[in-house]
């Protein structure tokens, strides 16, 4: 046997090994393949024996080639062994419908985000456009332009975080109203979701929370329209056509008339109670004028929703702090799309 013939034979064996090892589907067949290709009666051992018929250099080369092929086949076998043991392929033909599947690829969306999206979708269907504004604000956009001058007692209701550079963290998303009115001419119909900050921390307050602000400025906008939009929103949001809603006079410096809106709910004892759910009102003429909108031609309404409060009501959460602990036992409860 010449070195060349041997080389061709070796290539053939390797080819064959590649194909048959690839097709092996269980460990016992793999053992059979090992015996076939590397066992005592294998072609490779046969070649080994025939080496003695070759002379010096030829013998060395052939030996080297033979060893390489042997190593390659060994590698194929051990790779296959790993892949077989990983996939438990012994089980492949048997299927148990009641078995759990493999690791799930479903995560979770934070309930605050879900509730926010929920609300935004409803408002978008009512043709509100969703916009965002900065969380670091200046005094003008957060207070002055909203008819809250320095001396106004209402500033006491907003415990504000100030930064070292005299800027502040917005205390409400109403600042986005001001920014939008500064950039756009009426008609304006926006909602602005986002984080807001107040220096307050106890069972019912966290220093950061989320709001959704709504604003509509156009000709002939009335309080009666505001009632309509809020009614549609709340009934949709709580998925209750018969939801009882009431508007009650209140006070915000940036709206007049101002209202707080309550919904009726059943407490744990089954008693009917009113629960405050949002604040709203007709945009104060001073706010329009400060944004260079003629309050004799245009009017508008604005509303502000507390997202945490909506989430607590809708999802039955009683402890506000849960939202910011990010405990998986909490987060994973809200896996529904």
């Amino acid at each position: 046997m010449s070195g060349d013939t041997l080389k061709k034979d070796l290539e053939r064996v390797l080819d064959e090994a590649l194909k048959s090892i690839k097709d092996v589907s269980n460990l016992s067949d793999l053992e059979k393949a090992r015996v076939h290709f590397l066992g005592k009666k294998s072609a490779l051992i046969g070649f080994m024996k025939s080496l003695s018929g070759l002379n010096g250099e030829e013998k060395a080369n052939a030996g080297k080639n033979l060893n390489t092929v042997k190593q390659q086949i060994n590698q194929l076998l051990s790779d296959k062994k790993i892949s077989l043991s990983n996939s438990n392929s012994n089980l492949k033909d048997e299927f148990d419908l009641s078995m759990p599947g493999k690791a799930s690829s479903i995560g979770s969306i934070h309930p605050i985000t879900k509730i926010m999206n929920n609300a935004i979708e409803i408002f978008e269907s009512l043709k509100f456009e969703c916009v965002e504004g900065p969380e670091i604000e200046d005094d003008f956009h957060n207070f002055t332009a909203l008819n809250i001058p320095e001396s106004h007692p209402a500033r006491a209701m907003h415990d504000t975080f100030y930064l070292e550079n005299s800027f502040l963290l917005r205390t409400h998303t109403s600042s986005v109203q001001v920014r939008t009115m500064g950039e756009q001419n009426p008609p304006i119909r926006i909602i602005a979701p986002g984080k807001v900050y107040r220096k307050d921390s106890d069972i019912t307050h966290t220093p950061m929370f989320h709001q959704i602000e709504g604003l509509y400025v156009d000709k002939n906008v009335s309080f009666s329209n505001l009632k309509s939009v809020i009614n549609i929103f709340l009934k949709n949001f709580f998925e209750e056509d018969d939801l009882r809603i009431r508007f009650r006079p209140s006070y915000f410096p940036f709206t007049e008339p101002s209202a707080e809106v309550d919904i009726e709910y059943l407490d744990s004892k089954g008693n009917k109670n009113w629960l405050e759910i949002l604040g709203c009102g007709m945009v104060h003429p001073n706010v329009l004028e400060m944004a260079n909108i003629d309050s004799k031609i245009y009017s508008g309404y604005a509303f502000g929703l507390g997202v945490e409060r909506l989430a607590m009501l809708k999802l039955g959460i009683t402890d506000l702090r849960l939202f910011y602990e990010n405990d998986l036992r909490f987060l994973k409860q809200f896996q529904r799309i």
Partner: protein
Amino acid sequence: MKVTRSWLENYIEITNTTDELCHDLTMAGLEVDDVSKIENDYLIDIDLTPNRSDCLSARGISRELNSINPRYKKKPIADSSEPNPTCKNTGLKFNILESNICPRYGYMYLENVSSECRAPEYVNKRLSDIGITLIHPIVDILNYIMIDIGQPMHAYDADKINGEITIRMAKDKEIMSALDGNKYKLNSENIVVSDSSQIMSLAGIIGSEEISVSGNTKNILVESAFFTPSAMANKARILKLQTESSHRFERGVDYNLPREALVYLSQIIEENKICDFSNIDLIDHEHCIPQEKKVKINQDNIRKSIGIDISDEAIINILLSAGCKFDKKSNTVLNPSYRYDLGIHADYVEEVARLYGYDNIPVTSEKINIEPSKKYTPFEITNKIRQYFYNNSYSECINYSFVSDNLLENSNWKSEDFKNHNKISNYMSLEQNKLRSNLVSSLIRNIEYNNNMSSENSYRFFEISTVFSDNAEKVLSCVVNGDKHEEQWSSKSPKFDKYDMTTIAEDISRLFGLNKSDLSYVIKDVKSNGKKYIYMTLSVDNLIRKITNNTKEHHVNYTKLPYIRRDLSFVIDESIEYQSILKIIEETNVHSLKKTLLFDLYIGKNIPDKKKSLGIGFIFQDKEKTLTHEEADGYIEKILGQLKDQFKIELRK
């Protein structure tokens, strides 16, 4: 504001239940926070909005109830004549330097106050009912009058007054020991009542300790002044010293009350023979007293902006019931002196809506002529990203924007040596004294928290939020730790590595039709408490900008001719980036190369030091004809030649 039902019944007839009464108050904007039964009475706690200072008294609330519904019929007004004084005004001198702040200063003397004297029983009872501590009979009567009609007053021990009384601005660093037991350091913004040797009170806020009335006091000076709301605004808040008095003055007290309150006081004193009292003196600076504001009423505007069908006459009747004066000829109204919240037309729109009843206003659907923009909003973009993470078993976290000084938090997401924190000057705690510059440290804390609670072997968290450094920037961070997936029966999970993050970056770029190179992101690992966390942070602001400039998705024709694949396995310097290899391949200009596919990366045994082994598959396909194997071989030779030239690669056998 706390008041009892029986106190209100002093002024109005109440024929309905307390629940109904509270409902009427709430629905008129005087929200009843709490009602509790006390003996044969009810204690009503009203959460008043800051604009309604006129309701900071029993009489004010009664008046309001009468405007809300005439069923709360007014009772006849008590005699308001001033009784004959029983002692003289001792002739102290007053010097009101700040007449714009104190345009009206009323006072009277009480003499021969004995330690035996008592306030009438109904005064003590009513004050106790609403939770006001009894202090001294005269002081208690003053408090009673304040709650009853709304005028805050103050009593000074007249025997301790030295010389002329001045109302002036405080001097810088002037110290006052107040009745609450605290010392206050004042400045030139504070208004004080002082005599020649001491501060007698912080005007309209609190009296000073030294000159206060005690059990031994024989003679008393009673102050009943009007301080303007604009001057009083913020004064108490800055000193963190809110009193019943400051609360009323900064919101606005009726300037007609100072005399009335003193008359009321002398009536009570006379009736109960408590002590001697002088005549009443008022020091007025008429031009500084607020004027009633005349406002022209536009009935059409009122109908339109509320959205109700109401007659002109009915509108005026509502305003009259609220105590306004109406002039038919000029169609104007004047606000009552106690209503500081009625000054412009919008105030009257609100007043009409309020007394008409918000619940009676119909619901009118809108006719909107706006088409919202069709563009992706930032919110939609972040939601699509959230959905991607949701589908890949990541959990979304929301953390506070505040952080403390901490090593991990000292780096912003782009550079490690970030020092420009946005510090909060009035932070609540050292744990929350600045704004975070990255989300990663919060997310690592979330994983550590969860790891303490349970022992999962796989954590995948993400958050999308604004971080603050030199600028505010909206970013996305995802942090992973441990196994790629949760424990399961079918196979053991590999550990997370940084290339898992690369996949995310690639997927996100694909979601929005961009290339990975369009994104601004970092992928790193970091150790915390002995555990390794792998993370990616991506700029959402940058992504939004890129998406805005994006072209529309469109179809490209593809060929159905067969393809040929050739693989190359080679050893190359470890330091050479994959990107530069791709660049060289691209530069060979082989047009039939449809795709390159990295199928193997290996470093270790059998590969020389500082080298890596790469396996790349090349897929060739021609648009017009079936490729031959010879052509494919030719292409691969060309590519191989270039790679050899550029990187001195060695083919693996």
